[in-house]
Every structure is written in structure tokens, then in C-alpha cells.
């Protein structure tokens, strides 16, 4: 089967992919479509199946059921060396018995491309490691090995590049730098990148589209901002950033919004930001969208107010102050207040009210664990 090395990326499609291992199911009903040229992030906690998905796309695992299509072609039965896909492995997987130049040239040699060493050298220069071409991988630092692994994959101009938590072992500064470089390379060459990670900041920063995975299936997929501002499930709301969640049965419902009653407070969400419109629902709000007040605020129906409650914890994180407020019959509510230079205005034990705009509420399609007693 001749491999078509298109100068730009190809799209990836997973249809109904299922993967069973003896004893458990890693992937169930995976449906995915990544358009060509996109930087796509697969985000999730360890064990959610994201690495399995990657391996199935690379051809290193066979799906129990379903299809894998690259550039419209069904590659489900193809072996890894027959697919126009390259992987940057989490442990880099550099060949210890070859110089890094030979490592990078390996794929080119296998495909019998002309001037493999020259092209390999170009790739090494791209990641600023040309000077180390004759060294062995064991002589390089983690960050350098990481870049060699990247060069080794990129030099083959694959239609689809898979990255398995490639930045995990790097320190913060290096990671930031690599994130910028990766994104730049991807945009310049137009390759399709599938990046697997458990680091949500990384996913949101680099990707055009993020898919949040949990327990073998995709919970929610979309542009980073959309995902962040409007999470649809309790898992996504907690995994991506932090959320305050409130559970209650629907008390009021009109054309535009829904409200639940919690501990004597009315918590409202616009209907077009609510997944579920009947029965018991969960409404949430991001902590940075909330503010606290020292006296009971007088705000209109476009705001939600809860309180009074006592401040039980204050954390200073440089950029912001994080307050934890215990409101009787409601629960603990987190408020992020950006550190705009005003010295701490509130102290532990003080009594405050919390408010936010209704338009910032989001309604989930499910309930947080422990609340399902419908």
C-alpha cells in the first residue's frame, strides 16, 4: 500500500471505535473527527483511554470494533509502517545505539528518501540541536531528547502527527517554550496534530479543538473557550478549571431561564446555557465570575445572590486571591478575586454574600457524583 505523503496534513476520523482488553473496556463508542491542518488536543485524567486512542490511530493497537480513516482512506487494517502517521512518544523512545542524527534519519532511510542525513540535519537545526548531531541520546538532557524525538517525527512530514504527553517531563519554562515552538511549527507546515495530555492549560493554550475524555469516551469537544465557558457535564466542569456546583429541582421556568432553589436561594441559568430542562439539575458557575460583598447586595434579576456565609479559607496565588466561603444549606463556594493591587480587603471569619451574573451560569446534563438519587 503506497503511502501518500501529502504536503499538508490529512484529516482523521474515528468511527464507533471500541477497544476491549482482557478484564476491562478502554474505549467505548469513540467517534472523532479532526479536520486537516488542525491542532487537536485529547485531554483527560490518566486511565481515561486517551493513550489507547493514540495507539489505535498510530496502528500500534487494533480496535476491537470500528474504523480509523486518515484522509478519507480506511487504514484500520494497516500496519504502523504503512500509515502516514508519526508519533512522539512520552518516553521519547530514542534508539540508544544510534547517534541522534541517525535517529532522526531513521524514518527517512526506511522510506528510501534522498539525502536522509542532510534532511535530518535540517530537522535538528530546526529544534536547535544541530551541534549535538553525533551524540548518543543518553548524553542529552530530557528537554534535548524531547526535541530530538520531535525532529525525528517531523522530518517525515507525516499527514498526521501524534504526540503522547510529550512535554510532561520538562520544567515549566522549557515547557512553555516548547508549546510555542510546537504551535508555530504546526501552523507553518500545516500538519494535523493530535496531542494527548492531562495538562488542561497546555491543551487550552495550544489546541484549536479540545476533546475531554473520561472512562473511554469523549465527554465534550469543542474550542477551548467554548469548553471552558460552557462545560456540559460535571466531569468537564471539574476537570477543566474549577467550578461551583449547585444541585436542586427546578423551581421556576420561563421562556428564557430556569431556576432551582437551594437552601432558600434562587439560582438561575439561561435556558440556552442549560443542557437539561426538567427534574433535578445541576447549575454551576466559574469562581472567577463571582464576586463577594460585605453587605447584602441589591442586584437585579440578572444576578444570582447567595449568602450570607463565612470565609473559611483564603489563598494567595500571586495572580489572584482564592476565597472559600461556607454558606449554610448551600455548601462551600469558591470565589477568585484578581489581585489588582488593593491590599486584602477581607479576612477569615468575615460574613459575606456572593453574587454573579445569570449569563455566566451553566447548566449541566448530569449531576455530580453522590447526587444521583432521582
Amino acid at each position, binding site marked *: 500500500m503506497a*503511502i501518500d505523503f501529502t504536503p499538508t496534513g490529512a484529516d482523521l476520523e474515528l468511527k464507533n471505535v471500541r477497544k476491549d482488553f482482557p478484564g476491562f473496556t478502554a474505549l467505548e463508542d469513540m467517534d472523532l473527527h479532526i479536520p486537516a491542518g488542525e491542532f487537536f488536543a485529547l485531554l483527560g485524567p490518566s486511565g481515561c483511554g486517551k493513550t489507547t486512542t493514540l495507539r489505535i490511530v*498510530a*496502528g*500500534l493497537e487494533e480496535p476491537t470494533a470500528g474504523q480509523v480513516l486518515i484522509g478519507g482512506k480506511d487504514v484500520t487494517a494497516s*500496519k*504502523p*509502517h504503512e500509515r502516514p*502517521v*508519526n*508519533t512522539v*512518544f512520552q*518516553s521519547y*523512545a*530514542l*534508539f*540508544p*545505539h544510534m547517534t541522534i542524527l541517525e535517529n532522526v534519519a*531513521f*524514518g527517512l532511510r*526506511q*522510506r528510501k528518501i534522498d539525502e536522509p542525513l542532510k534532511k535530518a540535519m535540517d530537522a535538528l537545526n530546526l529544534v536547535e540541536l544541530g551541534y549535538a548531531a553525533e*551524540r*548518543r541520546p*543518553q*548524553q542529552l538532557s530530557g528537554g534535548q531528547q524531547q526535541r530530538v524525538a520531535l525532529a*525525528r517525527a517531523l522530518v*517525515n512530514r507525516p499527514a498526521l502527527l501524534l504526540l503522547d504527553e510529550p512535554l510532561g517531563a520538562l520544567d515549566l519554562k522549557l515547557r512553555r517554550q516548547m508549546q510555542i515552538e510546537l504551535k508555530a511549527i504546526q501552523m507553518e507546515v500545516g500538519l494535523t496534530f493530535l496531542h494527548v495530555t492531562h495538562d488542561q492549560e497546555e491543551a487550552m493554550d495550544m489546541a484549536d479543538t479540545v476533546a475531554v475524555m473520561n472512562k473511554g469516551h469523549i465527554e465534550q469537544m469543542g474550542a477551548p473557550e467554548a469548553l471552558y465557558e460552557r462545560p456540559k457535564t460535571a466531569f468537564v466542569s471539574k476537570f477543566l478549571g474549577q467550578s461551583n456546583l449547585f444541585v436542586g429541582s427546578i423551581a421556576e421556568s420561563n421562556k428564557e431561564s430556569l431556576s432551582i432553589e437551594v437552601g432558600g436561594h434562587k439560582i438561575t441559568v439561561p435556558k440556552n446555557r442549560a443542557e437539561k430542562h426538567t427534574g433535578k439539575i445541576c447549575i454551576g458557575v466559574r469562581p472567577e465570575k463571582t464576586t463577594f460583598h460585605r453587605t447584602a447586595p441589591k442586584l437585579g434579576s440578572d444576578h444570582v445572590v447567595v449568602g450570607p456565609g463565612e470565609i473559611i479559607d483564603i489563598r494567595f496565588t500571586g495572580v489572584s486571591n482564592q476565597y472559600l466561603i461556607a454558606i449554610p444549606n448551600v455548601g462551600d463556594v469558591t470565589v477568585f478575586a484578581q489581585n489588582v493591587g488593593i491590599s486584602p480587603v477581607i479576612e477569615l471569619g468575615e460574613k459575606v454574600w456572593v453574587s454573579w451574573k445569570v449569563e455566566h451560569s451553566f447548566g449541566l446534563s448530569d449531576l455530580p457524583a453522590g447526587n444521583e438519587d432521582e
Partner: protein
Amino acid sequence: MKRLTLGKLTLPAYSFLAMAFMLIPIVYTIVFSFNDSKQRTNTTWQGFTFDKWLGVCKNPDVCQALGNSIFIGVVSTLIATVLGTALAIGLVRYRFKARALVNLALFLPMATPEVVLGAGLAGLFFNAGVGAGMTTVIIAHVVFCLSFVVVTVKARVQTLDPVLEEAGRDLYANPSQVFWKITFPLLLPGIFSAALLSFSLSFDDFIITYFNSGSVETFPKYVYVLAAKGVPAEANVIASGVFIAAILIVLISQINGAIKRKRMLGK
């Protein structure tokens, strides 16, 4: 632990004594290879000479036996190494149902007494109408070397991260290329140790060889037969030579490994 100063010394002292004890016959053999024994026997010390080392093949029987042993060793090592490496890779890399049975089947030859194996093979060859000779010896040697090769290579395969082979496949190498360009070079030290081990076992084997070699003379057979009358010094020369060569190979490979490790950690 200061009060145990005497106790602290006992273990090292004991160990060095034990080591010295182990080396006594070796030293004796090497020393007597320099014995200026006028007769064919080599039991009493008669003076120091290099003659036996220089003219080791003046005694033609010894060198003939040595040549046979080397030939048998090389051929059986080749066969055992190929078969054993394949088995080791299969055992480590793949999961299959008959695993316990295969482990047992490979262990038994190591645990079988040489008389049993020797007699059994001799009987088999006899019944099959195959005369005992070079072929039967080589076949017999492969049998007992095989499991040792598997054990040694298996240990090496287990340290080989499968992700390296996956990376090879990801980079367009088909299974055969993955093996020759990635797996094999990385397994080479283990395969080399296994080959060395196999050769030493084959070279030194007596019992199984005795039952299955017919008229082919090997070095151990030669020594055994002469044990009654007296083993000539030339035999000591050969044994000492083999010993020194083997120790050198082992020491060199250990030092080599140490240097490599230091170099990698240094940069």
C-alpha cells in the same frame, strides 16, 4: 556498629578465604602446566619450563582433541544461540496460553542429570541407526546448551523497552527491519554472553559427550581416559589457556561496560 569491629572483619575474611579455596585447583593446574615433566605423566614437580606451552602440539593427540572440541563448540553454539534467542524473544514479548508448559519444557534439560540425557540420546541414535560421531555430539551439545542460552538472552530481552520497537514501526520499518536494525543490535551483549556460556558448556562437557561421540576425541574425553595413567602437562597448558582466555573475555566485557556507563554519565 563500632563494637562489632571483629565481627565486621569475619565476613570479608571468610569470603576471601572461600575465594582462595575455590581458586586452588586452578592455580595448581596452571602451575603444573609449567612442569618440566619428562614422562607423559604430570604428577610430581620436576622443574619450571615454558616448553609445554611453546610446543603444546608436539603431543598430537591433545591438539586433535582440542581442535574437535573447538569445532563442536562453535557449531553447537551457533545452533543453540539462534534457536535460543528466538525462544527468548518469543517468551518475553508475547503472551500465550502454553507459557507455563514452555517454561517447564525449557527448564527440564538444565535439571536433567547428564547420565540420563547421555544414555537417552545414545539409545535414540542407536535405535535410529545413526552411528555415534561428530553429528551426534553436536546434536547432543545443542540440547543442553539451548536452555542456558534462553535464560541468558531472556534476561536481556526483559530490559529492552518494547516502545523502541514500536517507534521503529512508527518510523516505517517493517517487522524484519525492526528486528535487524533495532532489536538485534540492542540484544547483542546478551546474545554474546549466551554464546560464550554455551561455548564453555560445550567445550567442558564430558558425560554426554562420552556417551554420544563414538570415536571422535574431544578434550575432556582425552583427559578422562588418561586420568588413570596420568594426564600430560600439555593438557594443563590447554586448560590454562582456555581459562585465561575466558577470564580475559569476561573481564574485558565488564570493564567495557563500566567505561561505557561512566562515559554516559559523565557528559
